[in-house]
């Protein structure tokens, strides 16, 4: 890519200044869906969880599915940004900011679901450790408290990770803007000037953050998986849940990232920045994760079937040939049988359309996987007298759709406030033209003259 810095600035800042009618129409539709979801939630808070499809024994269903799903999607940003930063992979540069944005927004949405699924959501703040008038603190032995700490740490870390490299880009916009934009970006760029000292501190901070955020991300989804694994429910109480969920999260996160990048590329005309090589590389990662997912599911199913515990076999057969089997086999189809062959063929992987075709089923399949972990185990829990069923109600369906719309809406707004590609990092990765080799400062100080 041979572009001058001015050209890059112009291309990547265009979405911030110009919005077509398509943007406003899409935003309006998404906002309407979000409003519908908020209405449904309000309705549920007023009348009680009875209007959802939850019952005894299936006390957790759609809301917790969505919760785990969105936390899973949030692993996109961390993997791409942090691990690739640590590994110094140069192809990461156009991808990092849109990935980090996915993380921040999906985490925020995921964080809503513990509130939505509470019986008395107005008392959610009792999970916050503060010296309360009730004379007790929260129970730190509960995995839900571990969730609270882990998700908040990850959210704070992700927001920091997103904002830190944004200051130079805000300064860029400040320099080129006028009027209210200049004022606003002037404030949020925090007076960034670009002295070597500032650059050093920023890069050091990014390095520390990249190293720190990876274990946090791994711990977050492990702890979310322990919401299930800590309970003696057949199909839940398995030691493999931690690694299986983290792998599944990275899997769904990369798929979501590919879809987001493909959309951005199309809608914001970023064809020269998000190139097939990026999709090729992400596609390779996605293939590895698909194989890893298959490995985990196979290992878990095999040990369950071989072990033949009566409690677990009811759950097992219900997913393999029983009531939940259509969903289960759809999931295997979506997560492995469609994507793995597509991504394994280099010719297809190099075409952006095909990687998107591989990624969309993965998002569906991973949502189904979360559902199939929760509901069959609760429906067939130990005592046949108490087996149950579950059917989602309109409230749960609308809220689920609403959160997807909320993600889209937040991302849309994000693309108009932040440059969707990190401009200074992109420029940093481009080869520089050199006029003539230059003496370093030390050589000059030592009085050497330039060789002819």
């Amino acid at each position, binding site marked *: 890519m041979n572009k001058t810095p001015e050209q890059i600035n112009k291309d990547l800042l265009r979405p911030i200044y110009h919005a077509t009618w398509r943007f406003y129409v899409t935003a309006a539709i998404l906002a309407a869906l979000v409003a519908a979801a908020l209405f449904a939630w309000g309705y549920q808070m007023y009348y009680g969880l009875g209007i959802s499809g*939850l019952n*005894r024994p299936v*006390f957790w269903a759609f809301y917790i599915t969505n919760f785990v799903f969105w936390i899973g999607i949030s692993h996109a940003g961390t993997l791409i940004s942090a691990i690739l930063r640590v590994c110094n992979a140069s192809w990461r540069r156009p991808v990092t900011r849109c990935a980090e944005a996915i993380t921040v927004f999906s985490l925020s949405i995921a964080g809503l679901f513990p509130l939505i699924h509470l019986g008395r959501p107005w008392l959610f703040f009792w999970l916050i450790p503060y010296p309360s008038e009730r004379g007790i603190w929260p129970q730190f032995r509960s995995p839900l408290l571990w969730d609270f700490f882990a998700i908040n740490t990850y959210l704070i870390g992700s927001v920091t990770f997103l904002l830190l490299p944004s200051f130079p880009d805000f300064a860029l916009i400040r320099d080129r803007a006028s009027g209210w934009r200049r004022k606003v970006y002037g404030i949020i760029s925090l007076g960034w000037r670009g002295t070597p000292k500032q650059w050093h501190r920023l890069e050091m901070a990014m390095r520390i953050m990249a190293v720190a955020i990876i274990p946090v991300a791994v711990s977050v989804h492990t702890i979310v998986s322990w919401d299930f694994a800590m309970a003696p429910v057949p199909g839940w109480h398995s030691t493999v849940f931690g690694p299986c969920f983290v792998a599944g999260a990275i899997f769904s996160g990369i798929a979501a990232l590919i879809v987001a990048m493909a959309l951005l590329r199309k809608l914001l005309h970023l064809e020269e920045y998000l190139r097939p090589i990026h999709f090729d590389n992400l596609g390779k990662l996605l293939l590895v994760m698909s194989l890893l997912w298959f490995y985990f599911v196979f290992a878990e199913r095999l040990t369950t079937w071989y072990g033949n515990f009566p409690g677990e076999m009811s759950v097992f057969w219900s997913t393999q040939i029983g009531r939940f089997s259509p969903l289960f086999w759809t999931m295997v189809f979506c997560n492995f049988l469609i994507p793995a062959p597509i991504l394994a063929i280099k010719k297809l992987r190099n075409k952006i359309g095909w990687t998107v075709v591989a990624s969309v089923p993965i998002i569906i399949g991973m949502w189904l996987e979360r559902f199939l972990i929760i509901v069959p185990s609760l429906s067939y829990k*130990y005592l046949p007298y108490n087996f149950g069923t579950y059917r989602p109600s309109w409230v749960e369906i609308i809220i689920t759709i609403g959160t997807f719309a909320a993600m889209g809406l937040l991302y849309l707004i994000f693309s108009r406030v932040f440059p969707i590609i990190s401009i200074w990092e992109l420029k940093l990765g481009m080869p520089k033209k050199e006029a003539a080799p230059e003496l370093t400062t030390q050589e000059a100080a030592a009085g050497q003259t330039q060789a002819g």
Partner: protein
Amino acid sequence: MVIDEDRCTGCEACVAACHAENNIATVGDDEAARGRALHWIRVERYYEGDFPDIRVKYRPVLCQQCSDAPCEPVCPTYASYQNNEGLNAQIYNRCIGTRYCANACPYMVRFFNFYNPVWDKPLDLQFNPDVSLRSVGIMEKCTFCIQRIKSAEINAKAEKRPLKDGEFNSACVQSCPAGAMIFGDLNDPESRVSRLSKSNRGTTFLEELGTHPKVVYLKRDTWHDEQNA
């Protein structure tokens, strides 16, 4: 508590008594069909054999008040914890309705108020004043009629004497016409419940899960009897 399955007739007087004692609402046909009935004690029926040689087994299931209760450590607000008498206490005011305890309980003895409970008139006049009413979003379960235990303890303390065995009974135990349920202090080695819990007819429910329940089920070993007959 000790429940003698050889004596249980499946009459469900215990269920009715529990509803009356603990102000449990009936949820209505539709909600019960959706699986949201609030029977703190239920009688499970298992049929064996084909007509005309059908045998029925009855098993009243209530909160087992486990010593190593899986429902306790998962509650984020300490609404479910072990009090110093060994009961699994449910503090309604602390409950924010995460329903994690219900998922963790292998016996399915925990119940959630999906709606605000309603009582048609004049049933709203028959509440037991010793038991608080639960509102929407709160988990509830059998408390071993802790209000009766406490009231007996208070009486005994006022009269400066220890509790006598048989002085207090939960509502279900009191109402059982077959005398299939026995209640008392497991710490007292002389009490009926202590002696019966050591019977060789005794097992605990889902013993392999390691919850160490305090409810012992007595049942004659009919399988071996049939083999040896």
